[in-house]
C-alpha cells in the first residue's frame, strides 16, 4: 500500500489515476438523490454498500451511460455484468442481429449509444452486411475490445487511415503470400490483399501511441505479439485479432476465456432454482384459477418474499474470481 511509486505521484494525478474522485462524486450524488430513503438506515452503511458494490462490479447496473463509461473499472464491470446476465442467451445457441444485442445492452443501460454496438458489430462482420446474425461469443469479445478500448481504437483508426493514405512514403502495396494472414484471421477476400498496411510500421506507430497516451490501451507487448505474426493487415483484421487474443482478454480481466464462456456453475444453480420455482408457481396459479375474483380475475398470489440480500463480503464460489484490475 505504501509503495514509493504511490507517493511519487502528485496528489491530483494519483487520485485521477485511481478514479477515486469519480467514485466519491458519484457516491455523494447518489446520496443526494436518495436522501429520504438512505437517511433511514444511515450514511455510513450507504457508503459501505456503495463501495462494496464498486468492488463487486454491480455498481453499474441500470446506470446511465456516462457513468458506465467513466472509468475502466466500470467498463470492465459492465462487460462482466452483460456476460453474466446474458450468457444463457449464448448458451441457447441463438444468433442475434446487432440491433437485438443492442436491445440487450439497453436492458442494462437504458441510454447505451447505438454507435458503439454498431462498431462492435463491424468488427465481427468485418464491416460487411451489417444485418447478419452474430454468435454471442463473437459479439461479446468484439464488444469488449470496442467498449473497453474505445478511445484507443479511435486513435488507431486515425493512424491506420494515415498509413493507408500513404503518409509514410515507404508504404508499398504489394500482394504478399496469403498464408500468413489467414492463419490468424478469417479469410479477408481478394480486395483486402491490396489493402492494409505493413504490420511493422503499424506496430511502431502503435507503440508510440501507447507511450503517449494515458488512457487504457492493451498491453503493448501483446499488441506487438499480434502484429508480429503477419506481414500486412487491415484495420478490422487487426481488431478481430485483438478480440480473439486470449492474452488481452485475460489482461483485461473482465471475461473468462472463450472456452469457459458458457460456464458459470453458481448462476446455473441459481437459474435452476428459479425455473423450478416458476414451474411450481405456474401450476399453483392454475389450481387457484378456479376461483375468479372481482372482474373475473384470478386471485393474486401472496407477496413473494424478496430475495435476501447477499452480505457485503460474500465471495463467489466460482473459481474464476473477479478481481479489480490494477
Amino acid at each position: 500500500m505504501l509503495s514509493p511509486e504511490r507517493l511519487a505521484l502528485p496528489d491530483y494525478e494519483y487520485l485521477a489515476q485511481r478514479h477515486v474522485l469519480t467514485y466519491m462524486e458519484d457516491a455523494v450524488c447518489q446520496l443526494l438523490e436518495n436522501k429520504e430513503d438512505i437517511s433511514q438506515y444511515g450514511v455510513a452503511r450507504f457508503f459501505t454498500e456503495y463501495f462494496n458494490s464498486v468492488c463487486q462490479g454491480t455498481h453499474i447496473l441500470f446506470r446511465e451511460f456516462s457513468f458506465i463509461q467513466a472509468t475502466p473499472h466500470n467498463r470492465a464491470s459492465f462487460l462482466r455484468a452483460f456476460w453474466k446476465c446474458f450468457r444463457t442467451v449464448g448458451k441457447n445457441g441463438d444468433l442475434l442481429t446487432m440491433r437485438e444485442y443492442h436491445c440487450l445492452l439497453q436492458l442494462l443501460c437504458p441510454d447505451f449509444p447505438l454507435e458503439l454496438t454498431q462498431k462492435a458489430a463491424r468488427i465481427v462482420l468485418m464491416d460487411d452486411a451489417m444485418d447478419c446474425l452474430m454468435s454471442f461469443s463473437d459479439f461479446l469479445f468484439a464488444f469488449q475490445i470496442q467498449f473497453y478500448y474505445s478511445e484507443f481504437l479511435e486513435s488507431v483508426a486515425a493512424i491506420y487511415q494515415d498509413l493507408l493514405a500513404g503518409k509514410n512514403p515507404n508504404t508499398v502495396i504489394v500482394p504478399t503470400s496469403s498464408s500468413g494472414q489467414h492463419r490468424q484471421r478469417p479469410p479477408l477476400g481478394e480486395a483486402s490483399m491490396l489493402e492494409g498496411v505493413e504490420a511493422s510500421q503499424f506496430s511502431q506507430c502503435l507503440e508510440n501511441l501507447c507511450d503517449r497516451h494515458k488512457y487504457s490501451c492493451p498491453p503493448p507487448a501483446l499488441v506487438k505479439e499480434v502484429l508480429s505474426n503477419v506481414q500486412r493487415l487491415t484495420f478490422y483484421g487487426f481488431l478481430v485479432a485483438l478480440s480473439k487474443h486470449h492474452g488481452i482478454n485475460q489482461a483485461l480481466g473482465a471475461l473468462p476465456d472463450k472456452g469457459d464462456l458458457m460456464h458459470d456453475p453458481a448462476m446455473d444453480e441459481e437459474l435452476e432454482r428459479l425455473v423450478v420455482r416458476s414451474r411450481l408457481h405456474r401450476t399453483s396459479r392454475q389450481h387457484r384459477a378456479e376461483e375468479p375474483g372481482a372482474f373475473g380475475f384470478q386471485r393474486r398470489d401472496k407477496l413473494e418474499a424478496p430475495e435476501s440480500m447477499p452480505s457485503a463480503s460474500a465471495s463467489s464460489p466460482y473459481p474464476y474470481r473477479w478481481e479489480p484490475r490494477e
Partner: protein
Amino acid sequence: MIPGKYRSVSGRAANNVEFKLNKETPSFSGRLLQHDLERNYSSRQGDHITLASSSMPSFPILQRSSEEKILYSDRLTLERQKLTVCPIIDGEEHLRLLNFQHNFITRIQNISNLQRLIFLDLYDNQIEEISGLSTLRSLRVLLLGKNRIKKISNLENLKSLDVLDLHGNQITKIENVGHLCDLRVLNLARNLLSHVDNLSGLDSLTELNLRHNQITFVRDVDNLPCLQRLFLSFNNISTFESVCCLADSSSLSDITFDGNPIAQESWYKHTILQNMTQLRQLDMKRVTEEERRMASVAAKKEEEKKRESHKQSLLKEKKRLTINNVARKWDLQQHRISSIAPNQDRKVSDCPQDPSQLRGSTVSAFPEETGSLDSGLTSALQGLSVTDTHLVEVDGDTLSLYGSGALESLDRNWSVQTAGMVTTVSFTFIEFDEIVQVLPKLKIKFPNSLHLKFKETNLVMLQQFNALAQLRRVDQLTVDPQGNPVVNFTLWKYYVLFRLSHFSMQKINGTEVTQNDMIMAERLFGILAHVASSELPQYRLISILGDARKKQFRYLLETKGKKPGLVNEENSDSKRLVGENTNRATLNYTTRDFYNERLEEIKEKKKFCKMYMEDLVKEATEINMKNEALQKLWPQMFIELVRDAVIEIRNKNSYMKLCLQQITDQK
C-alpha cells in the same frame, strides 16, 4: 288445303251446298268483359262451307247458301277449316263478324271488301304481319292472338278499334297505336316486350295486359287517363323506380306484379301500397285498410333504416378517411424524427425514403380540430369521436384508438357499462412512449381490458415491455409487425413472457403460450432477474422501486378529479407492484423523455457534488502537502530542536538560573 269433301270441281263457280253455321257463337260484347280473351273461343267447326276455287289460282272463293245468308247475314265462322289463305268472300258485304280461328292463315287478305266488319277474329293462325286491314274502318274488335306477328303496324285506319288482342306473338315494341283513341282493351301478353312506352294517345284505354313479357321498366302509363287495370305478371321488374310512373296514374285501381323479381322483395307490398294509394286490388287481391296502414308504417321504417344506413356508411367513410389521415401524419412524424435527430437510438427501421421532403422545421403543431361528438348514436358499433387527427371507437368489447390525440379520450367519463364491457384495447399510430404514460389511466378506467394490441406504435426495444408490468393483468398481447421493429427480434416473445410472467399470459400474437415457452423464457432471462434483484445494493433497489412508485403517483395526480378512492387504489396497486415477481420489479422502462429529464435534473446535483468533492480534495491535498512538507522538514527540525536543547543545558548552573528566571518572569 281445302278438305276433300268440300272441294268443288276445279275452276267452276260454286254450287249450292247446304251448310250450317255455328249456332253457338257467343256474343262478342260478353266476351270482351272477361279477362283473358284467349280462353273465350270455343273450338267449333263451321260445317258445310263451300270453298270453291276462284279464277285466281290460290284463293278459294267462299259462298253460302242464301238461307244461311239470310239467317246469319252478319256473321261468318270459318274455324278450323285448315285454311292457309283467306278465301275470297263474295257477296257478303254486310258481314259484321268474321271468325277465322284455328287455321293456318299466313296473311290477312281478301277481306278489304267487307267494309262493315266490326269483329275480326284471327286467333291461332300463322300471320306474320298485320296488313290488309286498311279498309275496315268500322272494325271494333281485332283478335290477332297466337300468331307470328313481329311488329304492330298498319292499324292507321282502324280508328274505332275498341279491343286489340295481340297476345302470343313476337312483338318487341309498342308502336303505332297512338291514334287508337277509342281503344279500351289492349292485350300484349306473351310477347317479347322489354319495356313499355309509346302509350300516349290511348285516351280510352282501360285495360292493358302485359303478362308474360320481359319488361324491365314501364313508362308513359301516367298518360293513360282511363287506365284501370294493368297486368304486369311474369315480367322482369325488379325495382319500383322502373315503374314509378304508376304512382302518377290516378285512374289505376288494379295491378298485378306477381312473377316479377320485385314481388320477392321484402319491401314489395308496402312500397307498392305506399306509392299507389289509389290501388284497390293488388295481385288479384283486395287491398284492405289494415294493409294500407301497415304499408305506410313499414315504408316509414324502411325510410328510417335507409337514412340510418346512409348515416352509418357516411360515418364509416369518415372513419376511414380519418384513419388514413392519421396514418399519413404518423408517417410524416416518423420521417421527421429520423431526419432531424439521426443520432437518436429510437429510429424506425423502415427509414426515410425522402427526408428532403421535410425542411427540418421542428414546429410540430398539427392542427387539432376539436371534433363534435355525435351524441345521437347509441352504444353498439360507432365512432364516439371522429376528428381529422385521431379516432376513438368502441365496438362492443374493443376499444380502438388511432392517433396520439385519441389518448386524451381516456379522460372522458365512460359509462360503467361501456367501460366494463371492453376487454380489448387496440392502439394504432401512437408512439409507445405516449401510451406508457396513460397506462395507469387505462388500468383504472377499463379494468377488464385483458388483450392489448399494438400496431404502428414504434416498439423498438425489449425494455419497453417493462412498462406493461404496471397493469393489473394482460391475458393476450398482439404486437403487429407493421411499425413495430421489435417483432423482428428472435427473443422478444421470451422476454415478454419473462418480464410479464406474473400475468400468466395465454396468447402472444395469436399463438398459445406453452409451459415450454415459459420455461425457456425463464431460462434465458432468469439470471437477469436474479442480478437485478439480489446483486443490486439495497439503496439502489429502494431507489429504483421508489422511482416507479413515484412515477405512478405523478401520472395519477395528473388525471382530473383526485378522488380519495384513487389513493387507496394506488396503495393496493403499489402493494401489488411488490407482489409481482419481485426479482424483476426493478426492470423498468422510462420513456426517453423522462429519462433525459431526470438526467438533466441530476446534472445540478452532479455539479454540486463535484464542487463539494473538489473542496474536500483541496483540503485533503493541502493537509497532505503540509504533512509531506512536515515530513521533509522534520529531520532538520528535530536536529535543531535537539541541538538547541543540548546547547541550553550544556552549562548546568547557567541553565538552572535561566529556568528560575523564566519562572519569576512568568509571574
